[in-house]
């Protein structure tokens, strides 16, 4: 696959989009998985799609700060209402997967994300 976009991930992994449905054409440069927001701020890269189980609205600020492609909330969790609101306000894409981090990461890698 040449350029992978968020919409490709949504389709391939059957993700639910909680916020930012209008921005799914964003390209995905790589992936990052971590639940410590301090670590994500320090180590994620621009264009990464970020896998986390954190639901707090600070995840939106972190994604915005590092200009990430989007957030995938794992393991069937749902973002808090304030998180969805903030994501809509700031144009951050928030998606949800029923699978745990390990499996989402594996599937993304298989699709070619970050390879």
């Amino acid at each position, binding site marked *: 696959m040449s350029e992978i976009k968020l919409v490709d991930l949504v389709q391939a992994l059957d993700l639910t989009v909680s916020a930012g449905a209008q921005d799914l054409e964003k390209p995905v440069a790589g992936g990052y998985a971590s*639940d*410590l927001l301090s670590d994500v701020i320090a180590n994620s890269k621009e264009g990464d799609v970020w896998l986390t189980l954190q*639901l707090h609205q600070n995840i939106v600020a972190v994604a915005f700060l590092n200009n990430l492609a989007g957030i995938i909330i794992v393991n069937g969790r749902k973002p808090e209402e304030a998180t969805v609101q903030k994501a809509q306000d700031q144009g951050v894409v928030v998606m949800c997967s029923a699978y745990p981090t390990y499996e989402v990461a594996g599937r993304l890698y298989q699709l070619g994300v970050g390879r």
Partner: protein
Amino acid sequence: MTPRAIVRSAIRKGLSMIGICDHNSSRNSEATIRAAEGTGIVVIPGLEITSSEEVHILGLFPSMKEAQLVQDHVYGHLPGVNDEEAIGYQVVVDEFDMVDDLDQALLIGATTLNIQKVVNLIRDHHGIAVASHVDRSGFGLFSQLGFIPDGLQLDALEISKLTDSDSAREKFSQCTDYALISSSDAHSLADVGTAFTEVEMSEASFDELRLAFKSSHGRRIVRTCRLA
């Protein structure tokens, strides 16, 4: 660590006021308050609540009544049962250091309450909310959530004995926006008093401490201290 031994250690270390905050439980606060009667040591009841984001927040309360109500709420939102073989006995003691009960909740776990709900719960019960060991890489507010979200009504931030207040303010700029305290987070008797905070108050009491955290009426945090 038992109430009488904790009080004796506090006296020996020259402390005036201590907080008793077990993980997600205030069940040992009352016995320590009783054990300190007549010694001059003031004991603040409380608990260290683990939010759903795995941030530790200390709740300090004016009396056992509020601490108890908050603890009941926390227990109602704390899944799991303790495994004594894997985790150890969670002893509840009386003021004579005698075992009253073995708590069966999974106190090491996280509540299902998010950080905003935890802080609101503490404040709704007239408590003081302090983010624990914010400098640490585990269970600290900055490690878990990156920064302090807008509108979170914390009364103070606590730094561990691994750092001093100047370094903390340099590393985490939001430390300058809050009262900054240091305490030992003692998990053994030897740790009692290894870090503490000097506070200017008219007496050692919960209400005075609250004023000091606000830098109000001439009360203030003088400095954080740690023993080498």
